[in-house]
């Protein structure tokens, strides 16, 4: 009898403890991070890059993480890079090597790393995985970061719209039916049209992020269509080189491409990844990292355009500053209506603005606005 009462007491308290234990983390996760603070000297940061240090896209990421290193005063051996990692099982082994090396946070800079990172995040819940340009988030230790590069493209579009004489602007684009690419094209075209309503943007997709020869050939084909400004959403400076050779003009991407095409390049939308890297790694140090997505823009200094070159049309700087001020004010963004698709359908009504979900995916995936033609 006594024994059974004792047993009942123990069982009840166990049950209570279980209930409390089950509830407690759920209640506290909303306010604090699930990760303990990491002393700066014990910190290790890893990064898997699709390209090398000297390619525009991965080079910008490299500079960003180096910027973080300087900002937080880390030593060289605390930041580990895996360059030239393809979007295959090699990505998985690169991630594992970084985990084994003791990294507390690991970044990956290419779309195709997404699923590999998601899987390994399940396996190592104590390590943080942060993926650039995708859309997944497991709510525990795997988040996503990207930037509002479309804002910078809008500004570059102004420079192109002011410069064109033929009112035809070529755009060497990577992939069709991709929200990032189409968002860039549309923002650029809106920038063009804001200063030059008659200009059209001719797009050719090359189905590759990176192919020096094909990028150049595509730019040459656009120039043959009477385009006199060549913009790009591909990684090498070849489209700008093609414009330079033809005595025409262009807007690069990723880095300031003026040195590659000194007489052609106007300005390029560029990335300052250091801001997002510093913010996330600082959170790891402070023990305040939470699995939220980062989507920073012009305001946070995440994206910008490279300094205007000598080739821009007079008055360009003023127009760009005007637009920049409007974006920075926060009252207006690039995808504010009315916006019509190139099939003539009104997709964003007057006074409305696109939600972020429709910029990074959704509507943008298949949208090309009025004045954009796929050639």
């Amino acid at each position, binding site marked *: 009898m006594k024994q059974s009462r004792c047993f009942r007491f123990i069982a009840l308290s166990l049950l209570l403890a279980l209930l409390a234990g089950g509830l407690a983390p759920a209640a506290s996760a909303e306010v604090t991070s699930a990760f303990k603070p990491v002393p700066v000297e014990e910190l290790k940061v890893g990064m898997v890059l699709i*390209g*090398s*240090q*000297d*390619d525009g896209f991965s080079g910008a990421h490299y500079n960003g993480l180096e910027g973080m290193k300087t900002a937080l005063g880390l030593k060289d051996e605390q930041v580990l890079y895996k360059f*030239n990692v393809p979007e295959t099982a090699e990505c998985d082994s690169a991630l594992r090597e970084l985990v084994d090396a003791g990294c507390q946070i690991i970044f990956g800079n290419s779309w195709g790393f997404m699923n590999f990172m998601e899987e390994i995040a399940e396996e190592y819940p104590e390590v943080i995985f942060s993926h650039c340009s995708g859309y997944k988030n497991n709510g525990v230790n795997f988040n996503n970061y990207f930037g509002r590069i479309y804002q910078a493209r809008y500004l570059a579009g102004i420079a192109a719209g002011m410069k064109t004489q033929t009112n035809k602007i070529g755009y060497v684009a990577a992939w069709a039916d991709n929200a990032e690419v189409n968002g860039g094209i549309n923002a650029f075209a809106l920038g063009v049209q804001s200063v030059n309503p008659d200009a059209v943007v001719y797009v*050719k*997709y*090359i*189905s590759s992020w*990176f*192919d*020096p*020869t*094909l990028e*150049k*050939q*595509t730019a*040459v*084909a656009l120039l*043959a*269509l009477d385009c006199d400004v060549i913009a790009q959403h591909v990684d*090498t*400076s*070849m489209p700008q*080189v093609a414009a*330079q*050779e033809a005595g025409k003009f262009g807007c690069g991407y990723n880095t300031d491409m003026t*040195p*590659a095409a000194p007489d052609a390049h106007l300005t390029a939308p560029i990335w300052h990844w250091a801001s997002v890297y510093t913010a996330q790694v600082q959170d790891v140090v402070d023990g305040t990292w939470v699995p939220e997505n980062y989507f920073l823009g012009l305001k946070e200094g995440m994206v910008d355009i490279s300094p205007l070159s000598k080739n821009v049309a007079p008055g360009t700087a003023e127009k760009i500053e005007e637009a920049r001020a409007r974006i920075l004010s926060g009252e207006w963004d690039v995808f504010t209506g009315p916006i019509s698709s190139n099939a003539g359908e009104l997709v964003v009504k007057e006074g409305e603005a696109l939600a972020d979900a429709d910029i990074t995916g959704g509507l943008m995936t298949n949208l090309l606005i009025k004045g954009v033609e*796929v*050639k």
Partner: protein
Amino acid sequence: MTQDFWGQATAFLYAAVLACVPLLYGTLGEILTQKAGNINLGVEGMMYLGAIAGFLAGYRTDSAMLTVLAGFLAGAGGALIYAFLTVSLKANQNVSGLTLTVFGMGVANFLGEKAKLNAPVGTAFMSERLKALLSPVGIGGLDGLPVIGPLLFRHSVLTYLAVLASVAMALYLRRSRLGLNLRAVGENPAAADAMGVPVSKYKYAHILVGGGLCGLGGVYISMVTCLGNWQPNIVAGQGWIAMALVIFAAWKPLRAAAGSLVFGALSVLRLYVPKDVVDIPAALFTMLPFIVTCLVLVVSSVRLRRENQQPAGCGVNYFREER
């Protein structure tokens, strides 16, 4: 409309000629190699070596002559590794060639990255003078002629050199005693050996020159296509298209010239076909050269004409003791 059509047609053909030159060099190099009885799958790698050597030589010396020479020698250097492995050490030809591709790509990307990162302005550039020397230039005002002007008379010196090389190689293979001996080495090295032809010397010489030609294709990519701007993975698979072209050209240099023009045209075709006229997926266009190669393989194997086949000794290393 019609004027627009002709403008686009001319632009397309001109782009085809620009695109075909590296393919032609790679194909000529591989034809010469296979005529000596060796399959060298390292075309891509040797093009990488030529591309980086030409780039570095141009950057350091500012001499067009040295740029071209360095590219040739680097390609030949890559081929020397291959020749030593397969001719002297009798290693497997396929494996040796494939490793040469991986090696060449790695070396080129490594050196290119170093050159760019160590350059004072953050990236390495050629002088305007050197770029102008290697870029397409009009010859004596003839390039002003309608349609054929730019097609025939506005090209890089490397383009004319490629055409010369294919004519010279055709004459060499068909009309010279050395060429006859070479064909014997490629078809039946034992018979050639019995004839008193120094088989190994022939193999070495032609594998090396073949590699040098591939290297020139690389120089064209880094110095003419990319105008002296180094890019990682600069060759991007053009060496493999050249491998397919060797079959397409039936191991004939002049057919290689025509074939590379066809492949060059196929590679830029999708950029000149207006979307509103023909709208098929880009992937189909990318497949075209390989579909055409498959068709050629099928047709040539059905017809079984001996002169259109691969040299019989290809892929098999020659051991004198095994005769």
